[in-house]
């Protein structure tokens, strides 16, 4: 039986995050959250592997207590267990310290054959977490996986998307996989699973009950990168706006201008 880990993240709806013009800080208060969309594609891939090859799916996330919502959403789609890592000292972590923390928690749970993660998150968007998790799990890695062909004898055969085509690869287990969403659109939970997930138990790790945790490697102290400054993008001066009163005359003027510049 395959022991499968799926890494998920609750993120703020980036479309609704605003910057406070006075302080220059991001205003996240009151902003709705969602499960990072690409994580749901990773979960879908994991569920298909479980259906075909058998296995157990453990979901893991790090975040504020409210990140439990994301775990319940994913449990409803197809997870057997869920783990939340939460606590103030974990806050402000970059990918270096987040990957350390997640792998520490995973080690406390056992050994995993397959680890699935989203290709990137919509909020941080570094796209680095998967590689750094793979390194810390001492796992092989198949990024941009398109199809999973076979899993047998401690190996996985899969296809992945490269810049110029599709490659078939064979990798040893444990293996970390990120998927192309085009082939792994997430399913919707059925009502029964949805209701069960609402009250399912969730294992919680904090800085106080994670075995062997090095406090210097988590949160801000463990981070390699910081964001000392954010600012609004400098915008160029607006272009020439065509406002002649109607669509017809606007377009007519545009065609004239484009013709003058020999662009059409």
């Amino acid at each position, binding site marked *: 039986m395959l022991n499968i880990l799926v890494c998920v993240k609750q993120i703020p709806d980036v479309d609704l*995050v*605003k*910057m406070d013009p006075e302080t220059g800080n*991001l205003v996240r208060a009151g902003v709705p959250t969602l499960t990072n969309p690409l994580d749901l594609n990773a979960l879908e891939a994991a569920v298909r592997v479980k259906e075909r090859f058998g296995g157990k799916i453990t979901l893991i996330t790090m975040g504020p207590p409210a990140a439990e919502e994301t775990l319940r959403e994913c449990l409803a789609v197809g997870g057997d267990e869920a783990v939340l890592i939460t606590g103030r000292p974990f806050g402000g972590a970059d*990918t*270096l310290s987040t*990957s350390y923390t997640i792998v520490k928690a995973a080690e406390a749970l056992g050994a995993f054959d397959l680890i699935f993660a989203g290709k990137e998150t*919509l909020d941080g*968007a*570094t796209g*680095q977490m998967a*590689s*750094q998790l793979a*390194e*810390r799990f001492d*796992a*092989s*890695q198949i*990024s*941009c996986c398109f199809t999973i062909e076979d899993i047998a004898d401690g190996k996985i*055969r899969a296809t992945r*998307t*490269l*810049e110029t*085509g599709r*490659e*078939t*690869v*064979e*990798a*040893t287990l444990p*293996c970390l996989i990120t998927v192309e969403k*085009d082939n792994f*659109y997430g399913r919707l939970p059925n009502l029964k699973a949805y209701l069960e997930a609402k009250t399912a138990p969730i294992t919680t790790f904090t800085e106080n009950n994670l075995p062997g945790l090095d406090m210097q490697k988590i949160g801000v102290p463990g981070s*390699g*990168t*910081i*964001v*000392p*400054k*954010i600012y*609004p*993008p400098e915008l*160029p*001066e*607006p*272009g*020439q*706006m*065509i*406002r002649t009163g109607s*669509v*017809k005359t*606007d*377009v007519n003027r*545009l*065609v004239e201008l*484009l013709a003058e510049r020999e*662009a*059409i």
Partner: protein
Amino acid sequence: MKKSDYKNMWVYIEHDGVTAEPVGLELCCELRRLCDTTGDKLYAVIIGDLPAAEQEKIIDCGIDGIIAVHGTGYDFLNTDAYANAFTVLSRKYNPSAIFVGGTIFGRDFAPRFAVQLDTGCTSDAMQLEYDPETGDIQFIEPAVGGKIMAVITVPVMRPQIGTIRPGTFKYAPTGKKPDLERIEEEINFDPAAIRVRPLGFEPDDNDPELDIANADCVVCVGNGLKDVEHLERYRTLAKLLGGKIGCTRPLYDRGILPYKLQIGQSGVMVKTKLYLSFGVSGAVNHTAGVDADVFVAVDKNPEAQIFNYCDYGIVGDMDEVCDELIAQLRARQA
């Protein structure tokens, strides 16, 4: 070791044994500029054999030296041997910064050796600056969906590692340096320990409609598009203009158009004579991927950021403007 003891900057040159990926050359050109302000030397790191003519192109970008790595484990690109090579090299020479092109391979292996070296790694910077007070590189990039620009630094650890997307910086070689240093290194990685092996490769069909990077005209459709039924008119317009259709990220996310048509920093960078955007808000991540002689923007929101990037803007319903433009272009061509 203090961070000021770490000196010089490296660029990894990804290649297939025949040609170097353009992003390596672009990075050498940009880092030449940065090293001229920091006083660091700039080295290109080449792993495996690369023809002399290709190496000349890299030298022409004004690098100070080449670190040429040979040994076992480099017959095909793989994260295990390549990440190991950088970890070994970095521990020996202690560079201040290592830059890797943000190809699929580069994005796979650079974050791994960052973990091995226990240091900070950034991705997708669009601008690189140097802060002489701290001695840190400022990796500047759009964040939170392009609404803000974020300055990212690696304040304590070294080396500073960055992956940079292809096409972010211009290939503008400043010419060969008179005395080029050449360092030869042998680093062997047991081929049996490589955990991912290629079994086969099938190149993509060369569908010309999906090759938009150098199209003369691009009609870009953004998230303002109501649904897929409304898309056909934009294809018609593109055809009338002898151009191709492209999109922004939300349209790919909505499953309406394929990834190869996604224009912007995380998709295709386009260089075109005429660019028409419909229903595109103008996030920095998107506009960074557009290099157009003439830029036309159509959107219903008069405050849309896209109007800051255009030459000509029309505020209105995207479908109506498109239909009218088709009608007038047809009348003109008749």
